[in-house]
């Protein structure tokens, strides 16, 4: 406990961010959403939906991808990265729910979605999937917690259900990752043609896989630096290879979509949207796809990390483009998040990092036993 309280640079930064974030949160609940945020009647969804929800859920996609790889496709050598990935995903979803509780006008009614059904609503489906999938992630991660408290029997019972739990998790993830795109299907007249497409659910699903994989690489690198552990370079290089395929698929679908809907012309029309669409595709998709195609890049720690960052940049810009940039023209106003909105988002992200660090410290997240077993 003493060690935890010893101040370091990052701990001081964390405490400052936390204090400002808590202040903003209190201010938001006392004075209302309009007082704390830049949202208004013309722009009802801002940074919290665009970043905290849309990006948060997508970046946590690594959980279902790695689980499917290891348990459904039986590619067991990826097992060493399963625990940190599932933990990242679980924390990601918990924080998405926290963000949602801050964004909802009346968060204490969040349970209404459980009893007041509207199956025609995409939001209803997303609510159920997020709720169920967070439970699935908890079950997937729970053996690590249970074993810490020497409850091996309970852990064993949960572990015996691994396969059905993983399959349910993959289906739920596929559904709500794509449904976050479906949310915008109902606004063909509002969302800019660069981003509105009948294929939105497919784009959201494929890009979530790219982002999920990039996040696994990103998180492995940060962990290796922070916790002084070896990096599983061979595994991550393979993920890089898969990423090439995913990015290529995304790009091909995007080209087909742009051709079919005659979108290319918008690149030569006035409006600032074209720059966002351009950079999103060049830096976030084409550049990493071409770079990662080369084995040398995939096997270099630094370059692999850099390209993962490109993919994450592309993914985050895409979600912000759909939810904010692409919706601005129709709304007729420019939305710039307020200081309080940004401070709350920062608080949520840093709480995520802090809990991850604590979990690594007190739970057996990077287990080396499995690695040894697999090598036999």
């Amino acid at each position, binding site marked *: 406990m003493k060690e935890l309280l010893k101040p370091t640079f990052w701990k001081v930064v964390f405490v400052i961010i936390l204090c400002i974030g808590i202040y903003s949160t209190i201010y938001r609940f006392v004075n209302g959403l309009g007082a704390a945020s830049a949202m208004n009647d013309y722009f*009802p969804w801002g940074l919290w939906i665009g970043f905290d929800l849309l990006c948060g859920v997508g970046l946590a996609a690594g959980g279902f991808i790695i689980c499917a790889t290891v348990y459904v496709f039986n590619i067991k050598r990826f097992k060493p990265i399963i625990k940190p990935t599932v933990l990242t995903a679980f924390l990601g979803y918990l924080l998405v729910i926290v963000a949602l509780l801050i964004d909802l006008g*009346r968060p204490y009614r969040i349970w209404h979605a459980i009893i*007041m059904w509207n199956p*025609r609503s995409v939001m209803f*489906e997303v609510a159920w999937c997020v709720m169920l999938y967070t439970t699935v992630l908890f079950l997937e991660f729970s053996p690590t917690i249970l074993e810490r408290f020497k409850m091996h029997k309970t852990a064993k019972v949960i572990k015996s259900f691994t396969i059905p739990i993983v399959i349910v998790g993959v*289906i739920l993830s*596929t559904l709500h990752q794509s*449904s976050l795109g479906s949310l915008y299907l109902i*606004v063909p007249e509002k969302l800019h043609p660069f981003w509105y497409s009948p294929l939105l659910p497919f784009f959201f699903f494929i890009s979530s896989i790219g982002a999920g994989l990039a996040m696994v690489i990103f998180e492995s690198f940060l962990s290796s630096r922070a916790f002084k552990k070896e990096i599983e370079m061979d595994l991550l290089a393979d993920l890089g290879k898969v990423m090439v395929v995913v990015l290529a698929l995304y790009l091909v679908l995007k080209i087909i979509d742009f051709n079919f809907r005659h979108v290319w012309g918008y690149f030569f029309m006035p409006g600032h949207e074209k720059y966002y669409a351009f950079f999103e595709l060049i830096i976030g998709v084409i550049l990493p796809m071409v770079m990662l195609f080369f084995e040398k890049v995939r096997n270099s720690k630094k370059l692999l990390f850099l390209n993962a960052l490109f993919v994450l940049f592309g993914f985050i810009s895409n979600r912000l483009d759909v939810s904010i940039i692409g919706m601005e023209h129709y709304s007729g106003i420019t939305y710039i998040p307020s200081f309080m909105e940004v401070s709350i988002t920062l608080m949520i992200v840093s709480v995520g990092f802090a809990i991850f660090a604590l979990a690594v410290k007190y739970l057996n997240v990077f287990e080396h036993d499995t690695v040894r077993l697999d090598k036999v």
Partner: protein
Amino acid sequence: MSKSILFDSTLCIGCGACRDACKERNGLPPGEEKELNYNAVNVVKDYTINGDTVFVRKFCMHCNDPSCVSVCPVGAFEKTSIGAVTYNKDKCMGCRYCMIACPFQIPRYEWFNAFPVVKKCDMCYDRITSGKLTACVEACPTGASVFGDRDELIKVAHEKMASSDKKMYLYGEKEVGGTATLILTDIEPAKLGFPSNLPNEPLPMLTWNILSKIPSFVLFGGTLLSGIWWITSRRKEVEEFEKNNKK
């Protein structure tokens, strides 16, 4: 029978009687707002077109297949059989998807309230179900706003359009599958702030096309994944068995 409000901009003198009556009925503070907000669910806007002032009302269009009803995760909105789209503030959890989805940008939010609700016109649901007129129609001194059966009012509008020497537009007859609020004008609706890029099909179909496939997807996906697991784990077993035999 589905009811409607027909608003004829050529008869409107911009007196604001409908706005004031609406505020009184909804218990909202008096004011002369030109834009909808949480204190004004019906406003009279003025546009200057070719030197003439045109007055036009803005309030809920009461779509036949409303986006708000379809998107609300808790079913707080309802398209009633009488035609009004109503909102239940006790169900609403404040996700504001209705505001994103509404093609006419109608729902407004209490941004500065710690316990906010959505505000929009409910076509005076309590009044019309007891046989009365809506407050706005009752207050209108010129007959610019009239209340009645939707089919009847569309007929009335078409007769007016046929007998007028100017080109007239009936907004809401076909847009997004038709709306209960009908706007009759001699100015292009796009110039009066009505979206001109809406399809004639109801928008909720766009999301329902995807949502309706979920049950099949779950069954198909579950079977596929279980099948893949069955094959790959069997392969692993065989591999291990052969390895042990070699030893």
